[in-house]
């Protein structure tokens, strides 16, 4: 007996699918760091405090780490305390964006 029936939108929100697709679909321009998949309000605030206020600044860091997954994950964890899932979401989001636009 299913009392809670999530909508497709809700599922997509929880899984971060829409956010990921929206980000990798177009050049990031001046998008805020919270537009990145895996980065919500809390993490976004922490990143902004460290000076990473735009998505392209995080992209810069991603590129300086040579797009390496392990390094980027470690950096993200140290900088804003992202958990494994958030690290993964952000990494795959940026990597796919780079595959399309870089």
């Amino acid at each position, binding site marked *: 007996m299913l009392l809670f029936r999530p909508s497709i939108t809700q599922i997509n929100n929880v899984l971060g699918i829409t956010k990921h697709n929206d980000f990798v679909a177009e050049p990031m321009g001046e998008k805020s760091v919270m537009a990145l998949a895996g980065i919500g309000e809390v993490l976004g605030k922490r990143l902004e405090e460290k000076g990473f206020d735009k998505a392209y600044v995080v992209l810069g860091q991603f590129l*300086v*780490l*040579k797009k390496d997954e*392990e*390094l980027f994950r*470690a*950096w993200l964890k*140290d900088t804003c305390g992202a958990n494994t899932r958030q690290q993964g979401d952000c990494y795959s989001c940026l990597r796919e964006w780079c595959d399309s636009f870089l």
Partner: protein
Amino acid sequence: MTTLSSKSAEEIRWMLDDYGIKHGPVVDSTRALYEKKLREAMAKQRKTKPQSDRTYYREEAELTYVHHHRPQRYDAVSHRARSNYRGMDYTDEPAIYRTQASPFLNVSQARNMPFEPEKPNILESSSTRWVPVWLQILVFLIVSGLLYLIFINMEPAEPVKRLT
């Protein structure tokens, strides 16, 4: 604790290569991350080195004699004025040459060496296990206690349950 923060970016790059850590350019935004990775690698090397060299003999025994000094050499050399990182490797080489000159003499010395530091190191390394030993023993006692209780409670029922 070596003063990694006082090293130049170039030296950090050399050290990362030495430890085989994959890395990009050492810039302001990546410096902290690489220093952390280096500290982890150095701590790991200090833990695993003395144990892994136990089974080595002749030539490797000479290496253990040399490598046992290595962790301390990093500390000593970092204080030197012109911190040419490659100099750290050079300070180790005279030790190598010495051991190679008289291999048999140093084998007996080197064999005695690893045994002594191993004992305190084994005690140290056991304290960094994932699950502490006392906890394992405690869990074991609890589980065996529970099984014993079950066993005790089953006893009176056994003679009754007979298929006749």
